[in-house]
């Protein structure tokens, strides 16, 4: 069970037939056109230079990668962009943890609610998507700013004297990220919770497990596919997100998504942006390879 989840079956006993390939064609074409080809273009660009107007010039250079890892003044190992990477991972990691802590109970509640109410609750989770993402982010700005709704309310009710500094802080960025990505965690976990066989939980209680133990040993493993899917759906887009850190963070603590976006727009240095993008792809690939190996190594 665990092996089947963790690693693809490579024994070659069930190769897809012609029909199987046909069924997969749309997906393969999609992957090629929107993942493989763009990544290859990015790879080529990352070794190019730019001209005065910012157009890509096809002459080979390592400079873009050198700029990521080495200080331009001293030539020694530089931490500028490493800090940006780490900051993005911290933001995304915090976001994922908060989404999990907040979203899991919600998903559990919805999944266990009577069927008639479930659809209503699910609709409530999705309603925010009916409004444009940017408008929702701007709404947060009016709520969190110094003269904003929240500060005015707190001052009006005499809970605070001076307004809090909430907007344009790292906290605001994480709040914005959690708000945006929470549904992406709730929905897959809900899918797992809904399918969970209640008799297994009852069996755990019958066999003497307390609530904590039943949760740990039965419920979590059974809803794990949903948790894994949710965590990935939150963590990966959160790392690349640039609009929220720009709008709610003020752009003072740039995240990797912001820096990359800036290279393609403001700075017009596509090769350097491509090099940053490739570095991110490689880091993801290594992390994925590492975790999938660990899953193989620890059975059950």
């Amino acid at each position, binding site marked *: 069970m665990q092996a089947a989840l963790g690693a693809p079956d490579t024994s070659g006993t069930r190769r897809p037939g012609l029909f199987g390939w046909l069924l997969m064609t749309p997906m393969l074409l999609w992957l090629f056109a929107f993942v493989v080809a763009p990544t290859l273009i990015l790879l080529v660009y990352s070794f190019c230079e*730019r*001209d*005065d*107007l*910012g*157009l890509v010039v096809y002459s080979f250079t390592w400079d873009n990668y050198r*700029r990521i890892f080495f200080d*331009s003044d001293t030539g020694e190992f530089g*931490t*500028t*962009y490493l*800090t*940006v990477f780490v900051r993005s991972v911290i933001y995304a990691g915090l976001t994922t943890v908060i989404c999990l802590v907040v979203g899991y109970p919600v998903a559990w509640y919805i999944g266990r609610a009577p069927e008639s109410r479930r659809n209503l609750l699910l609709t409530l989770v999705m309603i925010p998507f009916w409004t444009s993402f940017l408008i929702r982010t701007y709404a947060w*700005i*009016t709520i969190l*700013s*110094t*003269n*904003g709704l929240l500060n005015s309310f707190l001052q009006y009710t005499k809970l605070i004297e001076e*307004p809090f500094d909430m*907007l*344009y802080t790292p906290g605001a960025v994480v709040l914005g990220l959690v708000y945006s990505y929470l549904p992406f965690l709730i929905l897959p976990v809900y899918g797992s919770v809904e399918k969970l066989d209640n008799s297994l939980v009852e069996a755990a209680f019958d066999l003497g497990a307390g609530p904590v133990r039943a949760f740990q040993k039965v419920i979590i493993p059974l809803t794990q596919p949903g948790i894994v899917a949710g965590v990935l759906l939150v963590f990966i887009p959160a790392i690349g997100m640039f609009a929220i850190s*720009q709008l709610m963070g*003020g*752009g*003072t*603590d*740039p995240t990797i998504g912001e*820096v990359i976006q*800036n290279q*393609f*727009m*403001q*700075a*017009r*240095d596509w090769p350097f942006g491509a090099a940053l993008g490739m570095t991110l792809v490689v880091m993801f690939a290594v992390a994925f390879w590492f975790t999938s190996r660990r899953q193989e190594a620890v059975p059950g």
Partner: protein
Amino acid sequence: MKTIRLILALTLLAATAVPSYGQAKKKQVLNLFCWSEYVPQEVIDGFTKETGIKVNTENYASNEEMLSKLLAGGSKYDLIQPSEYTIEALIKKEKLDALTLENIPNLKNLDPKFTKMPHDPEGKYSVPWMAGTVGIVVNTAKVKTPITGYKDVFAGTHKRRIVVLNDSREIVSWALATLGISANDMTPENLEKAKPILATWLPQVKVYDSDSPKTALLNGDVDLGIVWSGEAAILWKKNKKFSYVLPAEGAHQFIDSLAIPKGAPNKENAEKFINYILKPEVSVRISGEFPYTNPNAEAVKLLKPEQRDNPASYPPGAPKLETFKDIGAAAKEIDKLVTDIKGRK
């Protein structure tokens, strides 16, 4: 029989399709690629009403972003809105189409102060839309010490109470101005001198915003800003506590203009649009919504006294102003400098 019916059906389909295609072609369009918050919807609607030309608008937030999309190809724009140094670069690279000046009789309305400037000495490629400056907005209700230049903004007493434009070239030019170096003198040695200044300045900034820097000031999140004069004029209009100061060290004067990129599919419509916005009664509406310095002398005559008295739109006295020139490859070094300092923080 089946084949015949199929052919019949196809011909019918083709017959119905062709006229509608013809109609679609006859529908005149103008693909306008302009700054966000710069072209009033009212003006676009008025143009469509007068000429029947449908306007497709796309927005950008910086000259560099516009260049990215323009030069990447794919989209065909008829009219773009670059600033002076970008016009110079585009002319150099032969990316602009010369205007047919006879098609734009309203050019006569322009104040000669704003035409045939160094970036387009013959006035062949661009028509000024609005001029403006980059200066300091002070919330005088919060900041009681006098602010006269960049040095006062970044003196350290207003840490994390500052909004600045998210524009690397602007930011570096301010640092150079405090050293008495021209904004167009971006040599590696001068950039090296700007570096330590920016390293102390940038950590004091709370918000980088080129689109709408007035938001952070209005919301009370910051007390000082180095912003476009039009943004400052709007703030002053809303509340007189927002005063506008042109930095004593010298300020950037920008000339945002209209220009037609090479290969524009609807050049004539673009020229019609230029001629339309040069009408004094139209131009004065643009000033009403976006109170920059209007280069249209006839339109300025139509302004209300309180509009003409707005110190951000029409600064009194003789401030030290400088337009940007194209600096070519140095643009990359400038951005590297700012990105590295921002990232390091």
